[in-house]
């Protein structure tokens, strides 16, 4: 490539980059120019042309040329906002920001009340680290506009950025006094206190910023959400402050919202009840719908359940009430109020037209509840009745499995077998696998689980395949134990399932016990039984160290302990043991990574 060609390409590249870079700036400039045109009346046209010329020079990299033009505009009209902003940009790029100061001072001489002028002067002194000058400029600004919050906010921000919180607070307090409103600058004071770590004062200020009727809540919430912990440390105090009497409905609503977001269910419920007691009619209706919806989103079923129960008591069109009852029924299940859930489903079933999908769904839920609450025999009757009414219902598989699992749990293997023979689908196939295990038919169980896995997806399919694979290492007796545990799990009793696996292994070989304990530890993890999981894994690594389950137990245990400050050394020891004692394990790379993390050799995130 010749030097000339290279130069041409380079210039073109620079132009392209400059055009991209300054596109946004030009847009802003043009907007500002509208104002200029109006302000300058007759001179507007020529000023716009000059500023456009300056922008073009700047885009081409001719900073000196652009600066000359901009300065000419300011000479003619020192208060031109567009020109002063352009000059600031040009000087900053050239590292000559200091030269902006005389231009700003001329601007302020011409217009002492120019907020932009004062603001730019303060910022410029701050960027140049000329703090005494900055303070003098701020003082002048405050004198010119004593009842305006902006100067105090601006100066406080500078001190805050320099972590001089005391000075920031001093400025803001002075601003509050001069502005003459007790809640003036409360948001900013809260910001400073938060950064300083004085949470008590931060709560006081933000509580003040929310105001007596809760109108400032949105701004405070936005700040809370921007904190690294989402405001977790502040929210309890803020709620307490907001509900302190005399608390208006607005403040109580804000407190309720915070409690919902923070997942403080009992507190949220108590606050919501206080709000609901003080409002009526459409306002109350809207509040309850909102609380129900948000509580469901935040996984606070009790609060949602309460809100929908209240809604059900209010007058509303039948169609709306049915929707509410439908939500209520599933929430009743979540909070364990099966009587209410069953009642709701019965009402729903009757309310919907015969043969309708809604009626079918409600009936299916009612039967599932019956299987859980009323025993296998009655559930079986209900199931048969359902099948007569809806012979092709998609719920048959799920329902058949639920009733079958219940019968298995009651030891009624023959009834379960008869029922399961008459239904098809992945859920009933799983139940057939459990039945086969209970009868000692490992091959049949394996086949049923693998059939089910084909129609399942995600983690459920993976777990089912793992279950089928596990059978390859078990005898019929061990399979029977696994079948019982699996049935307990299918009936929603994870704790009992773990107990069956841990306690029912007498007479089995050590290898089989190791397999079942490993499975028990996984179930305990999924059920949130952390202590139980840890206890089981300690047994595996101590009593069954030579079996293939030991590496996974070592890794899982190490991970659990690594999170506790006083157990890090033990976690490290376990990881080293995994690497050194089980070098062929596929988990060794993961163990090394954990070890690196514990030793701070790789970033923790």
């Amino acid at each position, binding site marked *: 490539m010749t030097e000339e060609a290279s130069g041409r390409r380079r210039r073109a590249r620079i132009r392209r980059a*400059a055009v991209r870079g300054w596109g946004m700036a030009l847009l802003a400039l043009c907007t500002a120019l509208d104002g200029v045109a109006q302000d300058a009346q007759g001179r507007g046209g020529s000023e716009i042309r000059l500023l456009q010329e300056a922008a073009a020079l700047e885009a081409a990299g001719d900073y000196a040329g652009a600066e000359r033009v901009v300065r000419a505009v300011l000479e003619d009209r020192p208060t031109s906002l567009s020109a002063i902003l352009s000059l600031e940009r040009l000087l900053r790029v050239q590292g000559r920001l200091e030269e902006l100061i005389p231009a700003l001072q001329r601007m302020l001489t011409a217009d002492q009340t120019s907020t932009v002028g004062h603001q730019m002067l303060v910022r410029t002194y701050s*960027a140049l680290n000329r703090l005494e000058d900055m303070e003098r400029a701020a003082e002048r600004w405050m004198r010119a506009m004593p009842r305006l919050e902006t100067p105090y906010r601006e100066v406080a921000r500078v001190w805050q950025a320099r972590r001089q919180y005391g000075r920031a607070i001093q400025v803001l307090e002075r601003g509050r006094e001069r502005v003459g409103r007790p809640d003036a600058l409360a948001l900013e004071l809260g910001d400073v206190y938060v950064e300083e770590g004085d949470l008590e004062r931060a709560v006081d200020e933000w509580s003040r910023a929310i105001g007596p009727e809760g109108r400032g809540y949105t701004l405070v919430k936005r700040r809370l959400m921007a904190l690294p912990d989402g405001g977790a440390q502040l929210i309890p105090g803020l709620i307490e402050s907001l509900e302190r009497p005399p608390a208006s409905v607005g403040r109580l609503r804000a407190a309720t919202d915070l409690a919902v977001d923070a997942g403080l269910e009992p507190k949220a419920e108590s606050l919501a009840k206080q709000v609901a007691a003080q409002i009526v009619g459409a306002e109350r209706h809207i509040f309850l719908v909102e609380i129900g919806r948000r509580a469901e989103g935040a996984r606070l079923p009790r609060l949602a359940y309460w809100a929908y129960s209240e809604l059900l008591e209010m007058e509303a069109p039948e169609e709306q009430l049915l929707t509410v009852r439908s939500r209520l029924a599933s929430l009743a299940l979540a909070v364990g109020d099966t009587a209410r859930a069953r009642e709701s489903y019965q009402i729903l079933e009757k309310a919907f037209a015969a043969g309708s999908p809604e009626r079918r769904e409600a009936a299916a839920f009612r039967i599932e509840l019956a299987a859980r609450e009323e025993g296998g025999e009655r559930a079986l009757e209900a199931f048969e009745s359902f099948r007569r009414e809806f012979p092709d219902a998609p719920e048959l598989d799920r329902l058949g499995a639920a009733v079958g699992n219940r019968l298995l749990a009651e030891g009624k293997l023959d009834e379960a077998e008869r029922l399961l023979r008459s239904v098809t689908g992945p859920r009933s196939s799983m139940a057939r696998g459990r039945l086969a295990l209970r009868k000692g038919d490992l091959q049949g169980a394996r086949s049923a689980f693998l059939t089910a896995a084909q129609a399942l997806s995600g983690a459920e399919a993976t777990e089912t395949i793992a279950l089928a694979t596990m059978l390859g290492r078990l005898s019929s007796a061990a399979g029977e134990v696994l079948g019982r545990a699996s049935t307990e799990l299918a009936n929603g009793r994870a704790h009992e399932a773990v107990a069956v696996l841990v306690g029912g292994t007498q007479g089995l070989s050590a290898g089989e016990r190791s397999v079942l304990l490993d499975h028990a530890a996984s179930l305990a993890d999924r059920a949130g039984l952390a202590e139980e999981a840890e206890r089981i894994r300690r047994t595996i690594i101590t009593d069954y160290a030579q079996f293939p389950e030991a590496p996974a137990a070592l890794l899982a245990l190490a991970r659990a302990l690594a999170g506790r400050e006083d157990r890090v050394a033990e976690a490290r020891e376990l990881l080293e043991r995994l690497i050194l004692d089980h070098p062929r394990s596929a988990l060794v790379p993961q163990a090394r990574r954990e070890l690196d993390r514990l030793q701070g050799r790789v970033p923790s995130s």
Partner: protein
Amino acid sequence: MRFLLVSLLVTALATAPAQSQYLLVPMDDAQTNHLKAYGLTYWTLQQGLTAEWLLNYRSGSFLLPDRPEVRREAALRGVAVEPASAGQVAEIRATIEESNMESIILEKAPKIAVYTPPNSPPWDDAVTLALVYAGIPYDKVWDEEVLQGRLREYEWLHLHHEDFTGQYSKFYINYAGAPWLQEEVERNEAVARQFGYPNTPELKKAVAEEIRRYVAQGGFLFAMCTATETLELALAAVGVDIAAPFADGTPADPDASSKMQWDRTMAFEGADVQVNPGVNAFSDIDGHQVNTPWRQPLGAFTLFEFSAKFDPVPSMLVQNHQNVLSDFYGLTTSFRKDRLKPGVIVLAEEEGTGWTKYIHGKYGEGTWTFLGGHDPEDPQHQIGDPPTDLDMYPNSPGYRLILNNVLFPAAKKKTLKT
């Protein structure tokens, strides 16, 4: 597959009934974790044992004594090792004798200092990242320690992205007013006041002078990124103002380039100083000029091969399992060939361009090595990027260059002086 092989190997070692005399740490593609292999070798030296660096033998392998504790460390770190009997080692030595290879005895774990501000996390700097990952300990030193003459306590000194012109890497162009920048300014100015210097550029010149003295008296210096270029500029700018007003309150001398004293530098000469405060570059030493409109694109650089028997030092510095490496940006990415002093050894260059990537030289009783760029595994590094996780790059050839430098001072002095 690789994992399986290593697992089998480690298992074979763990269950081996008898020990061999040596453990060979291969550094070719058979190695599973090249970076930690350096850490293992360093650890062996720390235990008071000796090691050998087999230059050009299987990409610069190490030979360690076969001890249970060495095997244990290798297994924990995931470093592949191969037992070698006396007979096998004799064969290796014969191969080395007949080829462009050499065996270098490593006898002492060098004491390492990294020049970095207090409280900076290791993830800011490629060398500290590599040292931490490999498990090689180091001390942090900064201006105070340097000015108090404490560099003499160390065999090896690393500099990374410090700006020795005292202009805070010209970050004020884009980050003026940013709290972290203000903090940096305040920290530097406080040290300048403490030691009686009028401003940060003068402070940094004094620090640069101490570093020059350290090398002249026999220290090993390894610098990357901006530290390479700005250290040299600071050394040459005796009595010349090359700093923007932001840094010292006065504009740079427009004739600075003609007043630079290049006889005081180690690597570069005849450079034009960038005195325009609006241009984010320090001089024309860097071929890439990453933050300017005339930025050059990244390519690949090639490591040169040296005679291991006659040039063991450059050979050590380029040991690698790959000899063509992807380039990576830094505030200083590369070094223009026409700015190098005569006698500078080019270790790597980008073919077909006018710049080099990796250079080395002797200065007084010591040596210096400069590598351009910021982070070999983060080619476009930007402020605020997440830190590089070296577990994702255990075989990084770029990071190997850094670690070659760490072990190089461990070699027997006799060898280094040849």
